[in-house]
């Protein structure tokens, strides 16, 4: 049985694990990113590659040592560098003497035939029929969607929890339940069960938490280790967070009732050009959060990430025009948790003050002379 692995990105590994196993391969589940993983990546990666590149390289080194023979990953169309990472990862790893196969899937629309022929090789290798493969994908997709929904639910619950840390603990229990669910029916009942668990967390409904939107580059946003668990940290400081990207994107379109296209359109007055990655989205989403009454926005960006640097240079103007404070966090291998927490605390203090001022204003108008 071929051993197949993939990159670690947030909690999606559960979905991909299922996908690979259902196809009849042995899944080498990438270990959760750790400082050691990062160190190894940093050692062999170019100095100015972004931290996702380094982290993924470190992960590949780990899974290859565990015996992975095939790596499956996604490509891209540019002009963001991520679209070329597969090629460079492969070159670096081969140069280190590893022997493996890598399948880099570029978006199908950039080359339908190439996409199809790669897919066919993978599916043939698995010995699956196409209908069976479609079923496998549907199951994995259902799982990914469930994971996204639970993550969002946890973020909404955390600021209300009575016992600090309980939501996160429960969420991790949920991950185990989700991992066990293998077919669509089990996934559906796992959804019921986990939602119940999260909803049963004792909470104080009287709180009025701040609302912060998180924008930025997808990998650092989705991988808690990379963003120093920003959602947990903010949640436990009493903030509801909303991430602009979920892997299956459904919340982004449901909750905010807008697709990516509109987000880009919102960005036009400030950034009238697709610059790759999520650069334009970061600008548009900040505007969207401002319009939806959020108190602030945090941008998370890997150091040297080109699209996010473009966005970062534009965000101060957006912040001024839409009166929404924006905090930009640039993340590299030196970024420390303590530093980030201090900056987040200061940011939250600022947001609280603003909110109090805004709440005080209507009274001032009502009772002139006081």
């Amino acid at each position: 049985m071929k051993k197949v692995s993939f990159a670690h990105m947030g909690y999606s590994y559960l979905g991909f694990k299922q996908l690979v196993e259902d196809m009849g391969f042995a899944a080498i589940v990438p270990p959760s990113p750790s400082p050691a993983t990062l160190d190894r990546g940093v050692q062999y990666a170019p100095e100015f590659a972004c931290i996702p590149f380094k982290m993924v390289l470190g992960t590949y080194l780990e899974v290859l040592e565990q015996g992975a023979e095939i790596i499956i990953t996604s490509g891209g169309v540019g002009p963001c560098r991520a679209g070329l990472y597969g090629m460079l990862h492969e070159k670096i790893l081969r140069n280190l003497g590893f022997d493996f196969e890598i399948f880099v899937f570029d978006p199908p629309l950039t080359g339908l035939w190439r996409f199809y022929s790669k897919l066919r090789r993978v599916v043939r290798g698995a010995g699956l029929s196409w209908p069976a493969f479609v079923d496998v994908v549907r199951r994995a997709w259902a799982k990914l969607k469930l994971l996204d929904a639970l993550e969002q639910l946890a973020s909404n619950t955390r600021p209300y929890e009575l016992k600090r840390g309980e939501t996160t603990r429960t969420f991790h229990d949920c991950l185990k339940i989700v991992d066990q669910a293998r077919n669509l029916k089990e996934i559906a009942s796992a959804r019921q069960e986990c939602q119940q668990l999260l909803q049963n967390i004792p909470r104080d409904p009287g709180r009025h938490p701040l609302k912060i939107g998180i924008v930025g580059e997808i990998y650092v946003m989705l991988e808690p280790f990379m963003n120093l668990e920003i959602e947990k940290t903010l949640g436990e400081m009493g903030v509801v967070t909303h991430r602009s990207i979920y892997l299956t994107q459904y919340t982004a379109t449901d909750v905010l009732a807008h697709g990516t296209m509109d987000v880009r359109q919102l960005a036009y007055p400030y950034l009238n050009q697709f610059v790759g990655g999520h650069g334009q989205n970061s600008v548009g989403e900040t505007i969207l959060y401002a319009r939806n009454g959020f108190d602030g926005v945090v941008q998370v960006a890997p150091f040297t990430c080109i699209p996010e640097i473009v966005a970062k240079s534009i965000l101060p103007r957006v912040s001024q025009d839409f009166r929404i404070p924006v905090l930009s966090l640039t993340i590299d291998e030196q970024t420390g948790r303590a530093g980030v927490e201090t900056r987040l605390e200061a940011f939250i203090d600022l947001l609280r003050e603003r909110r109090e001022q805004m709440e005080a204003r209507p009274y001032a108008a009502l009772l002139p002379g006081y």
Partner: protein
Amino acid sequence: MTLHIGFPTALIYYSHFPFWQGYFNRLGVEIVTSPPTTRTILDDGAREAVADACIPIKLYHGHVLTLKDKVDALFIPRMVRINRRATFCPKFLGLPDMVRATLTGLPPIIDLQVDAGRGLLGLWPTCRGLAELLGFSLGTAWPAYREGNKHQRAYEELLRKGYLPLQAMARLRGEAVEAPSRQPGALNLAVLGYPYQVYDDYISLDIIGKLQKMRANIMTMEMLPPRRLFQLSSRLPKRLFWHFSNLVIGATYHYLQQGDIDGIIHVTAFGCGPDAMVDKLMELDVRGISQGKVAYMSLSIDEQTGDAGVTTRLEAFVDMLHQRRENR
């Protein structure tokens, strides 16, 4: 009264200025360029621009600042594609927006898009747009466009003959400069990198001048026909996304094939996104393809890079290459 349009002496200045000079001149519009880079220009740019930007982008902001009170409008085209093969670095794509959001008190910015990816018409759509914007008839714009092309062709021809960009421009202005001639027996070095990084004497710390003083023959990517460079760049399993990066990679392969090159020096900006990849590819391929016969050095430059440090590294590199030759 003639219209004065500002053109910062940075980024695409080194690759495309002659075209725009020809075009605007013919229209009767005066192009005002910023003075050569100085410490102050760089410092001003670095202070204003977003901290994580690379030095060429910071520098661009600085050049815009020197022009802003002297011109009626600034010409900051949005460079998307000039051929079908690749786009520009995302920082070029967002350049007018970055400048607009970062600097205040600017004159109007002309940020027409240059996207020659689809048609065969090259820069004409942009020129047509410009003419409409500035109130010229298409009948005036067309000869101006042709004039621009003529200038650009003359410029590129000079580059291929071995003139360095600033020399070639001086030559176009009618000054009597000569291209450096190749010295037999001297070291042959390819100095590769993005033109706005390599040929700005200030931010490149005049690497080429320094090497010439050490009596080396300098080869650049501008000395080769771009078509050939693009062909060579497609040797990679997946072609790079960015225009200049493909030229650099193509030139690397070309000089590796040429056989008489002692070393390749890659000049790159600290924190440059595309170069994180280009540099690694060059390092691996120079070593792999030449089997260690061609030496490779990468010089990454930021605002703090000191002149002395660069000189030392270049000297060490050159000494090493001389020794190698003797040992051969």
